[in-house]
């Protein structure tokens, strides 16, 4: 598969702090690539390097074969970015914000007007197009920023926490539009710390922590690879001591969650059999019994913890 973004040995230091530490990864053309990490992990720094805002101290990055350091204008011409912080021109109208971006990317007048009309309608901002962005809510500003990014019809779209702080409806609209544009061929680089969002949208995910890549794979593989994170959740008709269940063979950890007890294990079948035997021997009735695959959040936390231990 062809490569849209290639990152080799990328490094960025701020004084004694290494924000991005010799990272390597590739993003394939046409995929939605998730970039997950806790706050301060290096997500935004990586995006700012890839979009040509700051220069790395070491390493290289290419966007559609254009080296971002050697051919920045060509690389920037085919990308768009939705930065983490809202940064529309609040003293310009929504329309003028869009026209400005169109002019800065050299989009012909007729095309930029047509595209702006469509985008404003798609995002529900058409009626407010002649209003100053100063009076827009956070959600409206975020939609406008996304409109500005899409107006240039980029080949690669960088999104830094695009739904952070938005209401459910706005977040869903933005996710739907991301999917639609990806379907139309745009490669998406999505930085987020929202696991559910990454799980719903991304073809592959990279997890970054302390400036280093902890893992890259598709969400399903990441879940499956994580041994010790499978679990069995059980509830009985009478209270049971959690520490008693933790003694069941193959159980690595037992946690009380509400009226249920979750038992972490690599062998769920064996644990289920043991639970049935346990219930019979104690005269208990099993109210519910479920096997659970690890969530992306479980995987994320495990990887981050492992990484901290390195």
């Amino acid at each position, binding site marked *: 598969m062809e490569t849209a973004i290639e990152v080799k040995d990328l490094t960025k230091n701020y004084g004694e702090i290494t924000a991005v530490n010799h990272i390597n990864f590739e993003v394939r053309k046409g995929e939605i690539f998730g970039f997950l990490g806790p706050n301060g992990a290096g997500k935004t720094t990586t995006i700012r390097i890839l*979009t040509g*805002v700051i220069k790395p101290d070491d390493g290289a990055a290419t966007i559609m074969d254009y080296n971002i350091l050697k051919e920045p*204008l060509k690389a*920037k011409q085919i990308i768009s*970015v939705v930065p983490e912080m809202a*940064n529309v021109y609040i003293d310009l109208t929504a329309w003028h914000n869009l026209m*400005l*971006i169109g*002019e800065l990317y050299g989009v012909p007048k007729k095309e930029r007007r047509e595209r702006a009309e469509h985008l404003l309608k798609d995002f529900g901002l058409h009626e407010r197009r002649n209003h100053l962005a100063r009076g827009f809510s956070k959600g409206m500003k975020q939609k406008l920023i996304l409109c500005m990014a899409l107006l240039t019809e980029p080949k690669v779209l960088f999104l830094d926490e695009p739904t952070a702080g938005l209401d459910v409806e706005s977040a869903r609209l933005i996710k739907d539009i991301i999917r639609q544009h990806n379907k139309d061929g745009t490669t998406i680089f999505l930085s987020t710390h929202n696991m559910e969002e990454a799980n719903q949208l991304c073809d592959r995910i990279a997890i970054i922590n302390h400036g280093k890549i902890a893992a890259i794979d598709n969400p399903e593989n990441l879940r499956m690879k994580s041994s010790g994170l499978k679990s069995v959740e059980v509830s009985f008709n009478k209270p049971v001591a959690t520490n008693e269940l933790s003694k069941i063979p193959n159980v690595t950890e037992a946690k009380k969650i509400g009226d249920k007890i979750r038992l972490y294990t690599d062998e769920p079948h064996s644990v289920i059999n043991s639970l049935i035997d346990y219930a019979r021997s104690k005269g208990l009735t099993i109210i519910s019994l479920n096997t659970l695959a690890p969530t992306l959040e479980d995987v994320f936390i495990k990887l981050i913890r492992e990484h901290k231990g390195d």
Partner: protein
Amino acid sequence: MLEYQFLEQLKRAFAIAKKDLRIYYKRAPVLIFGLIMPFFLFLAFLIGRNMPMEQLFTGLLGMTVFFSCMSIGPAIVPFEARSRTLERLVSTPVSVWALFIGDVIASFLYGFLISTVPLIIGLVLGVNIADLLVLCLGMILASFCFASFGVLLSAYPPTDIPSTVMMISNLVKFPLVFISGVFIPISEIHEWGRIIASFSPLTYFTDLVNHCIQESSYYPVFVDFIALIGFTLLFLIAAIKIHERTLPDRLS
């Protein structure tokens, strides 16, 4: 190809200028330091003196061009750094030189447009302008020169606090007004004063205005033009180079 790229970048610089004019012309620091303050300075100079209209007009025109062309330039970059729109601009396919030329063009247009007001008032009041063409050419050149100077003044330190830049800019602007023959013709100041005045771009513009209105100038007209062109190139190149260097600090 290179020519196409240059023209394309220049078009984008004009888009930035258009944006600057839409946003910054009504900002408080621009109005205070660009129009109100020099107006009161002029009044302070005028009241209680019995001066010929021509000498007053020379001073008024010199100050208006100087202050109005330098009012928007210093404010833009710190405002944009603070509102994080600078980051957005840097991520677009616009060269650093085009980005700052855009700011210079906006300052030039704003200042030049305002400067035509005293010119028209002078013409209406019957000020005798001996060489209108040279005066207009001089105004255009001086406006571009001072606009570049304004953008240069915002290059260092790389702060995102507009008032800091405006303060630094005023520390430079006001002394220049007093040494550049705006209030006292250069020929009437001491020799050491004339040496200092020769380092100020405003000196050459006021001298040019003196030539066009009072038909007396200290330097030959071509020297005024060459000096203004030289200062313009110096300020423009320095502004672009220093901004290029300080940009990462503003964005980090």
